[in-house]
């Protein structure tokens, strides 16, 4: 199934097909929810994986997000796109995951000197990539310190603007700007031969 459009997010109305699926799910049609899962899972996984940086955790969070969305589908107001709502649930789950790990090692204290793409392990993600360049990109992305990676993923995978990112991460917009700039600098250094 095709990955859903890369442009999200906020006030995007649901397509008529998606609208029908949501209504069917709200009327108890489980098969319709299966279609929604297949429609959005890849994009949601990419986003969550980018946030948490772990394949296994991303897998769990994506699964949990779909379960929770299904359980609460009755509260979903028809007419709106499903993905932003779903990704909000997933984001909260992911952020809590990050916050839990944050207790072990503060995001703020992560040192940029720890950026070493060669040491990053793609693990099972490797099977989901199409070519070597993709592997290079994901290695570099996963090797980014979490505070930079999070901002980068929200900007590039979820198309959030600076204000949205600042609200979500509760950091000033200026910090969003500087972190995103730094993330891009680090990626440019690592991927300069691909650019």
């Amino acid at each position: 199934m095709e990955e859903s459009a890369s442009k999200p997010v906020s006030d995007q109305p649901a397509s008529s097909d998606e609208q029908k699926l949501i209504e069917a799910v709200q009327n108890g049609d489980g098969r319709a929810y299966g279609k929604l899962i297949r429609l959005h899972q890849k994009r949601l996984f990419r986003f969550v994986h980018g946030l948490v940086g772990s394949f296994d955790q991303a897998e769990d969070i994506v699964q949990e997000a779909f379960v929770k969305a299904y359980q609460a589908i009755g509260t979903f107001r028809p007419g709106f796109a499903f993905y932003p709502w779903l990704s909000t649930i997933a984001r909260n789950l992911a952020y809590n995951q990050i916050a839990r790990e944050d207790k072990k090692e503060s995001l703020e204290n992560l040192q940029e000197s720890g950026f070493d793409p060669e040491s990053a392990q793609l693990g099972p993600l490797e099977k989901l990539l199409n070519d070597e360049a993709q592997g290079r990109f994901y290695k570099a992305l996963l090797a980014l310190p979490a505070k930079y990676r999070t901002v980068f993923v929200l900007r590039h995978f979820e198309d959030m603007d600076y204000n949205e990112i600042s609200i979500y991460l509760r950091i000033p917009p200026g910090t969003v700007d500087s972190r995103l700039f730094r993330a891009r600098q680090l990626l440019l250094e690592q991927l300069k031969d691909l650019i």
Partner: protein
Amino acid sequence: MDHTYYKDRISAYLDGALPPYEQKAIGEHLAQCAECREILDRLRALNSLVEQKSGLGENDYWERQAQKIEQRLGIAETQVTRIQPTRTWQGVIWKLAAAAASIMIVGVIGFYSWESIRDKTERPPIEMAPAIPPTSIATPQKVEPAPENVKDERESDRAPVKESAPSESEAVTPDTQNYKRPAPTEKTLMSEFPETVSQPTIEKSSVSAKTKPLPVQSVDNLLRSDAESKTDADRGALIRGGRAGESSYQVESAASSPAIAPVPQAVRHEGEIQLLSVRPPEAVASNVAPADSLAYWLAQEKALIGSGVDAGKSISLMQELADKSRSAVTSSLAERKDTSDVPSRLLVAYYHIARLSADSSDVSRARAYLIRYSKDTSSSYQTAAKAYLDSLARK
């Protein structure tokens, strides 16, 4: 102005995230500065690379994951299909070995079969013993049929489903508007960024899917416990959609019913006693049986769910309670110590609401609820929900 000032803002300039005056200033600088233009070009190239190289490819993995989620939600049509592994030499060798073994087995069986046929044709016919009269054959003990469906139902409940029992504090059902992020002013933004962040708590429960055995109930029992019908005749009328004497609808009797919605009779908490004591005024005044009083069932629904009843709320509550029940997680929801029988009581209430109400919103809410659970293979309420829907259809 310092050159670094411009360089540091090129990234935000590219995203159009600067205030208009800065956006303009950086644009003017870029027109004059080759070094900064090169940075801008490289950032653009990076954006392009991210677009091209961040997409994840097609793989069996996605279908497996989708099926796992469906299984967990009980909405899968089929069991998780085994994805064919890619062919390897090892696999080919095993297949060849298996084929060779099959041929050998067939050969051996064929040889012995041929030998036995040849023996029969060569041997003289054996004189057959006289037939034993049927009466002399010992009648086997009558064996009580095992309640297979009951067992299956229980087993399905014990299926190794990764249960999640959301806690009270979970903010897992964000309102649809929540994801609509407003664009606040800088002033309000700054006030929203305290140093100590209190994120919504969405703890994923690590409680194992330890299943509490659920008591087996028939529709009869279920209705008896919830409607508190005074006589068997009342109960029969109830089961048959309120029309006494109609026998075409064969609801499972206590003897033959499969396992369905559990109603632990032994568990009676204060809240539930109060709940059962809810009696509509007309029932008291005109001696109408509670089972046939719409007001009674609407009051039941409200008491079980709380105010602001709607289908979505009741369904999500039902799912939550069913999850809690299955994973034997005690809940403080609605200040009850055990909510395991609430889903089944709600199921019964919705059956009667759908049966008795003339209000289309009541009926659609109740039917949506029943339909949801008639399709939930992971739920022990599925059979009950189906039976109720059948009953409504026949009515």
